[in-house]
């Protein structure tokens, strides 16, 4: 089993379009959407949900106002500005700001604060025409997306092992923080999708540093490389200098949006330039992944 994670740092560079294409190109795989915060891969893979599970990230503070003596100690100790004493002499807990540390409930002399399990998302095992698909939906405004990502990956690798499949293809989230680290850690390879813009280049460098920090072998590809060929050359030079294999240069192609609107992976029907380049990218990635094996 090999786990391939597709990340970018910057959002909107084309991670999901590429992940969907890989899902249709790879022969023996499980697909995992780890962008649990704003998942999109299901829009191209049309999953039939077979299992749905609730996910609890932790607890939230709940006030029993009948027991509260208004001493205000909870307000003092809460570091997340989640508890306030209102003008009407009541205590109010803001469950969106509560990070579930429980300190308020430990120190409350009247035992008026209870920690309750909070349901903060759902995760699914689905069937698609491309293979098994594990995905999730984080509750709105919830935290601990890293924990939900870990759950999705755990299930995907379990299915992969049980069915003796070759790859787990992981569509990762943008950024460099908690859900990205959860998507990345322990993967066999990270493919960084960048674009030839100053933001794209800056964000690529940061995410490659994160991958290096967690010792994940990394390759790179440039999406829409022809919107600024000069910047693309800069990326190529930088990758060469840092020994990051640059495996593909995908041209800007209106067919990409068209296939997204129609709801299928680009490589499935379209015979356009972008589709062809992504197929070659996949072949090259397979070779690199096989080398990583040795």
């Amino acid at each position, binding site marked *: 089993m090999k786990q391939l994670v597709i990340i970018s740092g910057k*959002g909107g*560079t084309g991670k999901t379009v590429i992940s969907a294409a890989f899902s249709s190109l790879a022969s023996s795989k499980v697909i995992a959407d780890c962008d649990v915060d*704003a998942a999109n891969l299901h829009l191209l893979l049309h999953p039939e949900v077979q299992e749905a599970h609730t996910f609890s990230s932790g607890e939230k503070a709940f006030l029993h106002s009948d027991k509260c003596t208004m001493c205000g100690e909870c307000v003092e100790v809460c570091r997340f500005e989640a508890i306030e004493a209102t003008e009407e002499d009541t205590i109010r807990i803001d469950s969106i700001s509560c990070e579930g540390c429980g300190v308020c409930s430990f120190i409350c002399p009247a035992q008026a604060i209870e920690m309750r399990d909070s349901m903060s998302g759902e995760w699914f095992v689905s069937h698609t025409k491309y293979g098994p698909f594990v995905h999730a939906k984080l509750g709105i*405004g919830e935290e601990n997306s*890293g924990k939900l990502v870990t759950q999705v990956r755990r299930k995907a690798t379990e299915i992969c092992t049980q069915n003796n499949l070759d790859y787990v293809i992981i569509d990762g989230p943008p950024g460099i*923080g908690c859900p990205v680290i959860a998507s990345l850690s322990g993967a066999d390879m990270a493919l960084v999708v960048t674009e030839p813009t100053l933001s794209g280049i800056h964000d690529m460098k940061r995410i490659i540093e994160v991958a290096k920090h967690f010792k994940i072998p990394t390759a790179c590809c440039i999406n829409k490389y022809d919107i600024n060929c000069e910047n693309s050359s800069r990326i190529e030079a930088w990758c060469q200098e840092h020994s990051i294999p640059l495996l593909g240069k995908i041209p800007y192609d209106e067919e990409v949006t068209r296939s997204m609107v129609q709801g299928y992976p680009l490589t499935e029907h379209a015979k356009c330039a972008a589709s062809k380049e992504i197929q070659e990218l996949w072949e090259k990635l397979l070779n690199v992944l096989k080398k990583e094996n040795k």
Partner: protein
Amino acid sequence: MILSVASGKGGTGKTTIAVNLALSLEGDHPVQFLDCDVEEPNAQFFLKPQILKRQPVFVKVPELDKDRCTFCGKCSKICAYNALAVLKDDVLIFPELCHGCGGCTLLCPESALREKEWKIGILEFGSRDTIDFIHGKLDIGQAMSPPVIRAVKEHRDPSRIVIIDAPPGTSCPVVESVKGSHFSLLVTEPTPFGLNDLQLAVETLRLLKIPFGVIINRADIGNSDVADYCQMHDIPVLMTIPTDRRIASAYSEGRTIIEILPSYKKKFLDLYTKINELI
């Protein structure tokens, strides 16, 4: 006024809108720009601020005084984030898991834990013409961006129009960024991905009770589902920007729309007028 720019989906043009709005207002209004996308802060490439001051961002994490510790295990029992593990004769502390709640230090019966500062990022302060600029940068390998976002927002200046560039998504970093805004602009694109993530962003803002409007970028790609959705749910579409190779090319080089197409300045000022009418 605090005005945040968010999106759900990444790469729809949040930074473009935030930066061009700031530059259009600048001169007539005092403006402060806060880049709260601390994982990947990009407004700097367009505003090109002169950085005048840097300041590290710390969170408080526990540190053990082994002489006092009886290894009773209370700290690890109360820690909701598994940031402490108590062994027979030692306590392991994992600062990257710690949320800095202070519970272990407060509740240790032997007072064997004290807090020390742990650096997770940096703030940079600067200016571009009359715009006051602040952004945060999360350190590589750090997981938790909300404390850095909070640190950026602590410096907000209520005497100015505060424009907040938020990160993509809908989870805690976004909530932290937009919380307390008087209005939010949601930037999207008319594709199925744009629509899906717009709907999530709308739910988030409704939960936070922040009034909002939508900007449709690259308005002529994809289909009309985003416009239909907005109409059906009475969500004001405050601006549309057509696909324009000149804008894409300027963006790639760190140039702004109003720099290459000055007629857009009026559109951004109109946008600001519409926002004021909606608040």
